């Protein structure tokens, strides 16, 4: 097929985008790679059914979003051993937001605490908030990626932000 994308083209064009999104939810590079590869396996498996009625980017990011959400859900059932208690390091957040420079160990503790708090959000809420607030997608785009509506995305984001505020109030 003239003008078609091959396996190599497809991976080369989308690997950074997919890896970056996976890395938002799974900060360890090996975890992000595992999830990103899973996304491409699903893309190749589903490619024959791609009808072209949505831009390829939206189609791939929808698969990526669903895969990340499923993996978050799977890991929630199997919590990481040794996860620190959320309250113990809460003062670090206050110090950081008050402008205090954190040393490396404190910054690590703050990151772990923040990740623990995010893990408390329902997976779908976290995915929506990440796509909106970190990846900078519009509510309409997030709705397309998550198979939802623009209004539902906004409601979910509002609820997630409120929940996060309550956690660190």
């Amino acid at each position: 097929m003239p003008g078609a994308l091959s396996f190599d083209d497809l991976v080369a064009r989308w690997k950074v985008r997919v890896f970056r999104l996976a890395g938002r939810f799974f900060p360890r590079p090996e975890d992000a790679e595992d999830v990103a590869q899973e996304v491409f396996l699903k893309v190749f498996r589903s490619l024959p059914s791609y009808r072209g009625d949505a831009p390829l980017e939206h189609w791939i990011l929808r698969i990526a979003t669903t895969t990340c959400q499923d993996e978050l859900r799977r890991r929630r059932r199997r919590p990481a051993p040794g996860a620190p208690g959320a309250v113990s390091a809460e003062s670090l957040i206050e110090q950081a937001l008050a402008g205090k420079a954190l040393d490396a160990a404190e910054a690590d503790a703050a990151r772990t605490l923040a990740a623990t708090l995010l893990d408390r959000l329902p997976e779908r809420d976290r995915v929506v908030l990440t796509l909106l607030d970190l990846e900078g997608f519009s509510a309409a785009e997030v709705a397309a990626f998550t198979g939802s509506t623009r209004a539902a995305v906004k409601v979910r984001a509002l609820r997630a932000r409120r929940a996060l505020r309550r956690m660190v109030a």
Partner: protein
Amino acid sequence: MTCRQVRDYLRRSGADIAHLDNLPADVGAHLRSCTGCLSQRRVVWLMRMGSGSETGVPPPGFEERLRERLAAHPDIVSDDPTVSIFAGLARPALAAASLVLALSLAAFLSARAGVFSGGGPDLSLLASTDRHADTIFDDWGAEP
């Protein structure tokens, strides 16, 4: 600045939002006086701290490892899955349909040119037959 502008800034700027003094003066001034936006700053900061970096790139060998995983899945046709370049467009199906339409139109015009120059088969009878068999054309031709 409005709350919406400040919140958009917090989301999109990538700036170090932990230190108010490092932010643009108008953003810092708004945050000092607006508890709602100050609270939103806390949320965005938490999201950033608890999520992976936005600058991550796949480690070397990503494609090779992916090929190995693909090879372990015989249900996936991985020889050379291809997708049309139209897929990258905003309305791929429309773009493809437009191309087909343009090619059809070009073929039709070529055929008509052949008719008028006398160098091709006479399609006038066929065209006439089509016209009378098509109810849409009939409706167009009807006088009110």
